[in-house]
C-alpha cells in the first residue's frame, strides 16, 4: 500500500498536478510517525502508512487557503469529513485538493500499546488483529485491546468522493456500544456530579491550546481568545477561566466537529475532550438531524432553522 501511495504521489508531483503532498513519515522512533510535506518526486520514499498515523492531515489545508495551486494529501476515512467541512466553510475549493483515501482499519492508542508491550518496533493491522513486532517476536493482538477509543465509532469513511483510493474504504465496525456511550454515562449523573467532574478536568487544563491548534475546524483568521477587545478570556487559568475556554470552544464546534479525536489525543493533561464535543455532536444530530462533514450542500445547523423547531423546544 505504501508503495502504491508513493507511486501516485510521485506521478502527481512529476506531472505538476500538485505543488506538494501531505502525508505521514517516520519519526525518531518506530512508534512515532510525523506529518511530512513532499515537494519532489524523489522524496516519496519518506511516505509511510501504519496504524500509528493519528494525525488528521486536513488540518494542514489551512496553509493553502490564500494560495492558488493544488495540494494533495492522504486521509483516513474519518479525516475525509474534515475536507467536506472545509469546503462547506469556504476555506478551500474541492478542486484544489487531490485526496488520496487510505483504507484505515483502526488506529492504535499509543498509551494502550505502551502499557501492553515494551520495545515495540512495528505495528501492522491484519483483519481483527494488530500484529505487534517486539524484537524477533510478532504478537497477534485483538484490535479491541489496542484501538483508539474514537475508532470504535468509526462510521463514515465511504461517504466521500476520493480522487484516489488505496484499496476499499470501509468502516471499521467494532463493538455494539453507542458512540455516545461515554457522553450518556455523564448525562446520567446528577448535575452537581457533572459539575465536579468537569471542574476537575478544567482545573488541570494548562491552556496550551493544543486542542484548538490541532483542530481542522479552527480556521479563524484570529482566534476569538486572542482578541484584546473584547477580552473573552483572561490569560489567568482559574477553573472558571478554563471553563470559559472549553465551553466557548465547544460552542464553536457545533456542526463542525467530525470526531477525528485529535484534540483529545494531543491534550497533554488528559482531559477527555471528546466527551465534551461528542455531546455537542449528539445534540446537533438529535435536535437538528445534522451530521458534520457528510455533504457539501448541507447547511450547518446554526445558520439555518425550521419552523417546527418549536416542537423540539417544547419537548426539551
Amino acid at each position, binding site marked *: 500500500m505504501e508503495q502504491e501511495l508513493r507511486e501516485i504521489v510521485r506521478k502527481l508531483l512529476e506531472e505538476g498536478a500538485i505543488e506538494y503532498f501531505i502525508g505521514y513519515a517516520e*519519526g*525518531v*522512533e518506530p*512508534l*512515532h*510517525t*510525523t*506529518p*511530512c*510535506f513532499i515537494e519532489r518526486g524523489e522524496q516519496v520514499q519518506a511516505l509511510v502508512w501504519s496504524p500509528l498515523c493519528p*494525525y488528521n492531515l486536513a*488540518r*494542514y489545508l489551512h*496553509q493553502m487557503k490564500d494560495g492558488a495551486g493544488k495540494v494533495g494529501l492522504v486521509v483516513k476515512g474519518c479525516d475525509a469529513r474534515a475536507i467536506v467541512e472545509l469546503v462547506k466553510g469556504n476555506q478551500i475549493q474541492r478542486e484544489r485538493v487531490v485526496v488520496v483515501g487510505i483504507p484505515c482499519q483502526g488506529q492504535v492508542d499509543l498509551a494502550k500499546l505502551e502499557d501492553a508491550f515494551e520495545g515495540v518496533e512495528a505495528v501492522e493491522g491484519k483483519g481483527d488483529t494488530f500484529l505487534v513486532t517486539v524484537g524477533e517476536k510478532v504478537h497477534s493482538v485483538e484490535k479491541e485491546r489496542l484501538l483508539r477509543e474514537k475508532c470504535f465509532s468509526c462510521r463514515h469513511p465511504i461517504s466521500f468522493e476520493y480522487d484516489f483510493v488505496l484499496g476499499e474504504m470501509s468502516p471499521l465496525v467494532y463493538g455494539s456500544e453507542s458512540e455516545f456511550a461515554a457522553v450518556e454515562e455523564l448525562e446520567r449523573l446528577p448535575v452537581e456530579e457533572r459539575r465536579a467532574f468537569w471542574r*476537575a*478536568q478544567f482545573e*488541570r487544563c*494548562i*491552556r*496550551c*491550546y*493544543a486542542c*484548538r*491548534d*490541532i483542530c481542522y475546524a479552527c480556521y479563524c483568521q484570529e482566534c476569538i481568545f*486572542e482578541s484584546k477587545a473584547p477580552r473573552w478570556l*483572561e*490569560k*489567568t*487559568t*482559574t477553573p472558571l477561566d478554563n471553563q470559559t475556554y472549553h465551553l466557548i470552544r465547544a460552542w464553536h464546534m457545533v456542526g463542525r466537529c467530525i470526531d477525528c479525536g*485529535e484534540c483529545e*489525543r*494531543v491534550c*497533554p*493533561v*488528559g*482531559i477527555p475532550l471528546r466527551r465534551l464535543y461528542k455531546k455537542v455532536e449528539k445534540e446537533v444530530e438529535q435536535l437538528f438531524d445534522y451530521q458534520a462533514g457528510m455533504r457539501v450542500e448541507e447547511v450547518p445547523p446554526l445558520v439555518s432553522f425550521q419552523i417546527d423547531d418549536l416542537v423540539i423546544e417544547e419537548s426539551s
Partner: protein
Amino acid sequence: MKTIKKSHLAEWLNRVAQGYDVFGPALDGVVQFKRVNSSDQLVFDYANSVVPPKNLFLPQTECLFAFRREEGLVILEPRGGLERERVLFGIRPCDARSLLLLDKVFNGDLEDTYYQEKRRGTILIGLACPSPPQRTCFCTSLGIDPLSPEGVDILLTGLGDRYLVEVTTEKGEELVGPSQELFFPSAEGEKPKGEKGKSLEGIGEKIGSLWEDGYWRELSRRCLGCGVCTYLCPTCHCFDLTDVGSTLSGKRFRCWDSCMFADFTRMAGGVNPRPTGKERVRQRYFDKFSYFPEQYGVLGCVGCGRCSQYCPMGIDIRTIINEVMARGAK
C-alpha cells in the same frame, strides 16, 4: 550515605508532612506534582510528571498584587509568599537541573522575590531515574547524569527493596535527622554508576550558522504554534502580566506565555517581529542552544524529552539537534 526501606518511606514522608506541605507525583488525570495529604496519594510508577515542577516556583497563574483606587490614592496589596515550608518529593535529576537554570534567570541581577520565596522555602527530595529511561529521554546527551544528586537536597536511588539516600544539604539533613531510626547506613559502592554523555559541543555556533536556513520554515510547516512544548518545558519561563478588574480595582497576575503563540511578540501597534511560524520555531531552538548558553553559560535544555513526547504533530527536539549538529558550521 544511608538507606531506607521502601516500606518505611511512607512513614518517613508522613512524618515530614507534619512540618511541611508535601508535594509529590500524584495522579490527577495524568501524573502531576501535587500537594498530597498523605503518602498514599503518591505514585511511584512514573517516568516523569507531565507538567514539570517549575509550576511550583513559577505558577502558571500567580497573583502579584491587588490594587484599588480610594480617595485619589491607588492602594496596593502585595500577594504571594508561602504559608508553610514545602517539600517536593520525587523530582527527577533533569528537572532538578532545570531549577538551577531557572535560578539563573530569577536570581540574576534582580532577584524575583515571588520565585525566590518559593524556591528558598522548598526542600527537594530527588528520585533518581529508573533504567531503562523513557523513550524520549535524552538527558545524558546534555551531560546530565540521571542518578545525580545535583540540585536536590536529598536524592533517593532505588536499590531493590531499599532506597539509597544521599543527603547533600543541611536542609536535607533537617528532614532525615528527626527520623534517624528509619535510616540505615549503606555499604560502600552501593550507588550504581551513572552515565553521562558528551554535552553537545559547539551547538551554539552551529545553530547560529543556520539562522537563514530553510530548515526552520520546513519545521514550522508541521508546527501548529500551540504551547505544549513551552508549557511542558522545565526551563521555559516566559510570562505575561495581565490586570484583571477595572481601573477602580483589580489584581495583577503573572501568567505563563509562550513564544510559540502568534501574539507573543505582537506589539500594541500591531507590528509583530516574529510574524510567521518560521521565526517562532527558530526562536525556541535558538533560545535553548544559543541565547541561553550565551547569557548563562549553560545549555537551556535538560533533555527531559517532554516536548518530543507531547508535541501534537510529532516534532522531536532530538531530530532538530541531530540536524543542527550535522549541518551547522562551526
